[in-house]
């Protein structure tokens, strides 16, 4: 531990500012509140602050961020920003940054985030003042001992001097620019310890449910009337998520300049309290009721993220509580309300979070820039659907599994998740796309030879290896045939590996039937099939069944316990077909579905496709029904 007089500390900060090689950011006053912002002088620093309006999250996941710029010559990542020093980050906000690290480095490394993390030196500060709503003292109960925090330097205010703890080589190197740095005496170290203890005490509120038990408390209260009571008071304004240091969800939008060719793909904060957060292009909203959105925020923090990544996504900063105008966002009050039911579970201690070794994470990943691809064949197949055959320009095969999807990108318009419709293998892949949104409508206007962008393949597809030797019953409704075709073709190409193959496929009207020519070849390939339409308008020709797809189920012969049913269709279709299949004795674990959600990023980061604790873009879109038993948001 080092000691630096306040005068010398200010001189140190002013030196950094004057050097100009880095942006020096710190806590300043804004009216009667505090914010992190660029410093012109060390005098601006307000290291006596209690809490800032926004957390330092804004430096790593900015409110608005250019992910890539595009013009007629192509797509470019923006140049890395200037290095930063951020002065005065309280330990609870450092803990939040460590949670962000885990989230953005998990499985898929988010390169835009990584670059900003590598570029920032964090100077922490043990708080002297604590905001009224803060409860980070309670949150430290999660662990049996103090976690090692990810700071470069950490300050503790000892009156006319700062004690300085060094947390990294980078911090050590930075501190060498300071003058008259002394070693701390044992008394000074003792004072720092006391300061830490005092602040924990000050930031402890009357929380009746230990954060170790939040997970079980939430799980037991999924249907509690509390959600509706509180939801009725909720403005749905998104403030609690926007000001939260551990809310990471974002949206991505293309902004086009007035020349109609150049522009930028922008990432911006989004929040699960907002109504259109889960809205997909055809208009479906998957979490429409405010009480469900209100509950989702708490569940994500206390139940879903702990299950996924091992941390309670709350650090006790109190920002949501102090900035929620109807005063319903306070976790302390909410968990106390839930605990009134008498259940106060006490779970085991959480594993200590680990400081990410930033230097060890290679910055070679490229999560968001699409690969260029060429449309090889474009055929309009119905009034609203078009078939595309696509080849990646780098000559690589897509390498997908049946049931996976890609993000189709058109610069200036945006990205849309589209199922791959062809079987694995080959140098091209196929999609059938309905014209429902901006990207798909633009796609429909393109012709063979035109370029698009592709990211992926993403998600978990159909496990065709596990299906080998089994009898298969395919049930497709409407566009459900599109992802299902990738599996049907895989199975028919390897027909001898599978048992009986029966395909039931229905759509609204005869003119909407997809893959009509292929269907004719199914009998020769060893698949039995039945077709149906909801209705057949006068003047159209139809020889098959009339009625919803479920009406076909009794018309085929199969042994329910001995058949795997693969069911894909629009949201409403599942409720009926699954009930029909279960009624005749198909066990849940024999039913496989593929779900539609707003899969905006495709890589498990943006949060839009989440249903309860599951990211559909990663763990799905293909699921075994038995695995969705405890996922009420699935259907």
């Amino acid at each position, binding site marked *: 531990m080092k000691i630096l007089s306040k005068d010398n500390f200010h001189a140190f900060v002013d030196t950094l500012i004057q050097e100009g090689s880095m942006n020096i950011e710190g806590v300043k006053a804004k009216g009667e509140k505090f914010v992190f912002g660029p410093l012109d002088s060390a005098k601006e620093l307000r290291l006596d602050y209690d809490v800032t309006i926004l957390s330092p999250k804004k430096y790593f996941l900015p409110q608005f961020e250019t992910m890539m710029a595009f013009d007629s010559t192509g797509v470019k990542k923006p140049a890395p920003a200037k290095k930063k020093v951020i002065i005065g980050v309280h330990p609870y906000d450092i803990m939040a940054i460590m949670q962000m690290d885990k989230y953005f480095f998990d499985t898929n490394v988010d390169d835009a985030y990584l670059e900003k993390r590598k570029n920032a030196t964090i100077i922490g500060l043990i708080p002297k003042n604590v905001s009224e709503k803060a409860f980070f003292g309670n949150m430290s109960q999660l662990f049996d001992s103090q976690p090692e925090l990810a700071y470069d330097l950490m300050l503790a205010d000892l009156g006319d001097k700062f004690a300085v703890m060094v947390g990294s080589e980078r911090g050590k190197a930075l501190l060498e620019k300071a003058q008259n740095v002394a070693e701390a005496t044992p008394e000074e170290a003792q004072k720092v310890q006391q300061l830490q203890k005092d602040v924990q005490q000050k930031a402890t509120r009357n929380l009746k449910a230990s954060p170790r038990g939040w997970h079980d408390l939430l799980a037991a209260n999924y249907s509690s009337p509390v959600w509706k009571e509180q939801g009725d008071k909720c403005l749905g304004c998104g*403030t609690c998520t926007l000001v939260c240091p551990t809310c990471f969800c974002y949206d991505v939008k293309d902004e086009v300049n*007035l020349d109609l060719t150049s522009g930028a793909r922008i990432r911006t904060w989004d929040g699960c309290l907002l109504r259109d957060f889960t809205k997909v292009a055809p208009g479906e909203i998957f979490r429409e009721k405010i009480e469900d959105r209100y509950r989702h925020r708490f569940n994500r923090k206390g139940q879903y993220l702990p299950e996924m990544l091992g941390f309670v996504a709350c650090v006790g900063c109190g920002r949501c509580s102090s900035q929620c*105008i109807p005063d319903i966002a306070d976790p302390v009050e909410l968990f106390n309300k839930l605990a009134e039911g008498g259940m106060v579970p006490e779970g085991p201690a959480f594993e200590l979070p680990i400081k990410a070794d930033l230097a060890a994470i290679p910055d070679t990943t490229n999560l968001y820039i699409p690969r260029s691809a060429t449309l090889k064949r474009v055929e309009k197949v119905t009034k609203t659907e078009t078939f595309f055959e696509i080849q990646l320009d780098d000559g690589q095969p897509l390498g997908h599994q049946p049931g996976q999807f890609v993000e189709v990108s058109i610069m200036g318009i945006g990205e849309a998740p589209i199922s791959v419709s062809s079987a694995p293998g080959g140098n091209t892949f196929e999609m059938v796309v309905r014209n429902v949104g901006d990207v798909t409508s633009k796609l429909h206007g393109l012709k063979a030879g035109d370029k698009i962008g592709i990211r992926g393949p993403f998600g978990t597809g159909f496990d065709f290896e596990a299906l080998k030797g089994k009898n298969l019953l395919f049930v497709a409704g409407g566009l459900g045939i599109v992802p299902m075709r990738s599996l049907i073709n895989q199975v028919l190409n390897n027909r001898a590996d599978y048992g009986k193959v029966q395909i039931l496929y229905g759509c609204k009207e005869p003119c909407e039937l997809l893959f009509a020519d292929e269907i004719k070849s199914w009998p020769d390939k060893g698949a039995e099939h039945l077709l149906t339409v909801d209705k057949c308008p006068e003047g159209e020709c139809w020889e098959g069944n009339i009625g919803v797809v479920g009406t076909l189920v009794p018309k085929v012969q199969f042994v329910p316990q001995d058949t795997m049913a693969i069911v894909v269709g629009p949201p409403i279709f599942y409720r009926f077909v699954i009930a029909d299949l279960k009624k005749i004795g198909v066990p849940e674990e024999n039913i496989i579905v593929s779900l539609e959600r707003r899969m905006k990023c495709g890589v498990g980061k943006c949060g839009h496709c989440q249903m309860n604790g599951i990211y559909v873009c990663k763990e799905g879109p293909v699921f075994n029904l038995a695995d969705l038993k405890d996922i009420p948001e699935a259907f």
Partner: protein
Amino acid sequence: MTKPRVAFFDFSSCEGCQLQVVNLEEALLDVLALVDIVEFREAMKESSTEYDIAIIEGSITRPIDVERIKKIRERASILIAMGACAHLGGVQRMSNQWTGEENKAEVYKRHPGSETTKGDSNPYFAQPRHRAVDEIVKVDATIPGCPIDTAEFGRVLVALLQGKKLPIPDYPVCVECKKNENICVFETGGFCMGPIARAGCGAPCPTHGGECEACRGYVDHPHTQAHNEVLKKYGLTPEQIMNRKTMYTYRYVEEAKGGE
């Protein structure tokens, strides 16, 4: 590709939204590269009866306005309502809640000693009914705001020319306020329509010390009840709450009454 022909028309309004278009300055040259402006009273003297896109400013108030807007609609393939007057009926719409006599008294006879009879000869006081453009004719696109935001004008134009959905958000102004790291208006002792008002403006009013008056109208599903409770909690009387809701958004009050 021939450039679409654009004509601007104003009805009951302050013409401030047209002024915003002129305020595009250099960007206006970029706009002119995309479209031909054939009528724009505030910026040029030419006029035309042939255009593809009609941009309408102002509320529809007099019988002759109704005839005129219908004619414009017939001629235009795309009709855009620009600004709060065309979108909602404007601040003038609050006069819909009173009779012609009451409005006349408010304007000409309110201050003792300066009463005049000037208004007596004005026939429009008899039936002051301001309406939004889409209550008379079909509107293809709306650019909300009082005045409109110049950046949003550009975004809407780009979206129309690209055939994209309009980039008008359906979340409240609070979202943009928070991204600007503002201190909440309620915390500074003010009252704000932001929690139910449609964003897209970038929250300039709260950012510069003002209050949001919902000049862009409400989001599609405003949590009005919860918002009323908040206004009450922060000390507004039911009458004061109603005053807040009649400034730009009396349209919704009328629609709610009509729906009863």
